[in-house]
């Protein structure tokens, strides 16, 4: 235990430096490896899931709410980007701002869901994501969203630039988590998660805390969705609102360990890596293996890989 305020400050600075270095290392690695490995789309998908897992971490790891419909913000971001680019012909970076805006608007609309708890919240968010999908994919709205016929954004197609923007978004998400891990605000969020009544009594504003975490989490997903639309440039609404995006992000997060910085990173690199390797080599039994892995994970390591260390009191970055 630190004896003086100075020691505590030094410890904090050491932690922040460590966490930030890890974040920087990941971003630099994903940037550099692009020069060596030419299946760039796979790398892009890695970056997407790395960022989404962290975004989910912000809401689940720090407030205990698990939005099963997290993909709703992703899709909202993708369509926010697509709509302004298609109809207003703005440059792609402005489109990214629209993506962020769309996700934030959706998050504000869905704020009342935060009144619900646990499984109700998870399912309601899934229903919300589906509802947004049904609206976007409806042929009656074909003139605006192109309905079920899919979006084609060939004008702004820029695979290299959009990849680097994705890296920037990943850096942003990682830094958010570093901040939450090491700040008073992050601690207050964890207090709310563990026991909201006591936290309230200790003077923490429960509603404000949850709302900020929710908005930040949605923002990350919206930005990722926007850069996805930019990078892939052709997609159907089913792809943008595919529930398996939420599910993968959730599984990666839980496998690694929520509330930490490195947990989701480990989860994505290991599980998504396995997914791509097995998926290419032995796809037949793939779905079964993945399902079994998830079952074993929940039964034996419910707090993720990092719990092997945190159980022993070791702080994992």
């Amino acid at each position: 235990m630190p004896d003086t305020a100075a020691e505590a400050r030094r410890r904090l600075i050491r932690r922040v430096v460590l966490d930030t270095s890890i974040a920087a290392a990941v971003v630099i690695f994903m940037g550099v490896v692009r020069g060596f490995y030419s299946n760039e789309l796979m790398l892009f998908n890695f970056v997407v899931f790395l960022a989404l897992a962290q975004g989910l971490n912000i809401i689940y790891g720090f407030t205990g709410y698990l939005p099963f419909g997290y993909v709703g913000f992703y899709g909202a971001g993708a369509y926010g980007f697509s709509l302004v680019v298609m109809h207003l012909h703005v440059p792609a970076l402005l489109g990214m701002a629209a993506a962020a805006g769309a996700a934030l608007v959706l998050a504000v609309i869905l704020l009342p869901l935060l009144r619900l708890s646990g499984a109700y919240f998870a399912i309601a968010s899934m229903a919300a994501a589906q509802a947004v999908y049904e609206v976007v994919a409806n042929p009656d709205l074909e003139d605006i969203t192109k309905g079920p016929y899919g979006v084609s954004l060939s004008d702004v197609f820029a695979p290299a630039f959009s990849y680097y923007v994705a890296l920037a978004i990943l850096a942003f998400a990682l830094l958010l988590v570093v901040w939450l891990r090491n700040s008073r605000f992050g601690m207050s969020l964890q207090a709310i998660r563990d026991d909201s009544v006591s936290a309230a009594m200790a003077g923490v504003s429960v509603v404000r805390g949850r709302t900020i975490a929710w908005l930040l989490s949605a923002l990350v997903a919206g930005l990722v969705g926007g850069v996805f639309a930019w990078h892939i440039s052709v997609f159907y609404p089913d792809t943008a609102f595919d529930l398996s995006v939420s599910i993968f992000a959730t599984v990666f997060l839980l496998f690694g360990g929520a509330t930490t910085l490195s947990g989701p990173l480990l989860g994505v690199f290991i599980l998504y890596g396995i997914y791509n390797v097995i998926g290419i080599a032995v796809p037949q039994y793939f779905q079964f293996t993945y399902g079994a892995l998830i079952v074993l994970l929940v039964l034996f390591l419910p707090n993720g890989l990092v719990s092997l260390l945190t159980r022993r009191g070791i702080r994992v970055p």
Partner: protein
Amino acid sequence: MLIGAIIAGIVFGLYYTLVGLGLNLVFGVMRIVNLAHGDFLMLGGIAAWWLFSSFGLHPLWSAVLVIVVFVLAGLPIYYLVVPRLLRSRDSEMLSLILFFGVSQMIEAVTTIGLGATERSLPPRLLGVGPMILFGTRLPKAWIFSAAASAIAVLLVYLYLYRTRLGTLTRAVMVSRDEALATGIDVNFVSAVAFGISIALAGVAGVFAPFILGSITPNMGVAINITAFAVIVVGTLGNPLGTLLGGIIYGVSLMLMQTYLSSWANLLPNLLLIAVLLVRPEGLLGRTVRRA
């Protein structure tokens, strides 16, 4: 068209009551979200198909067989998985993930074993041609499934309110810890509830080829969301609530198909959210649980 839609909706909705009944039981007793519920339904349908195409067994007999087998199978599945799950910090959320994994496994095994093509049962087994109810033409199969569903609701209600095991189950539903403290074998009660739950899913699956046209290994996912909407609108823990939930869902769906057909799929989602936000205890509830 309006009356027709409403009548069809009531009868069709009763099928979804059957679909949601098991899910209601499991969630009420264990606070576990069984995301594999739709897949157990699919297994029931596959069982009926296989029993018919290999042995010519009529689906109504298959339904009985499915009930027995699934209840018995539910017990070991419960013991294997749930007690450990309930010991963790955030069991509700983790149950979502766990049963999702189970769902993937069931889907994978079925796809590998049988391939992805649609399977069904010949319509003549439950009667061809319409049954005319209050001037509306309805498939005979709907009447059978509505009857089965009503019987199932009645049986579950009788189980919960008239049998000893059922009373114990209701005790566990109110508070698991207190029930444990009074000496109730909570695990056994829950295991039986789980078995009944998947048996109900299986029976719904037997009727699926007639109500939904065909069965595919990946049909479970879509069924789940609708099932949740149905049980939430009704009240958790109350089988009569699921009856109401199913009917409301059925009627609204048919009305949507008549007047706003391309928006029909938006309905269960909006219904779910609306009820959760406005009246979370469901339409019949006296605050059984705070959402």
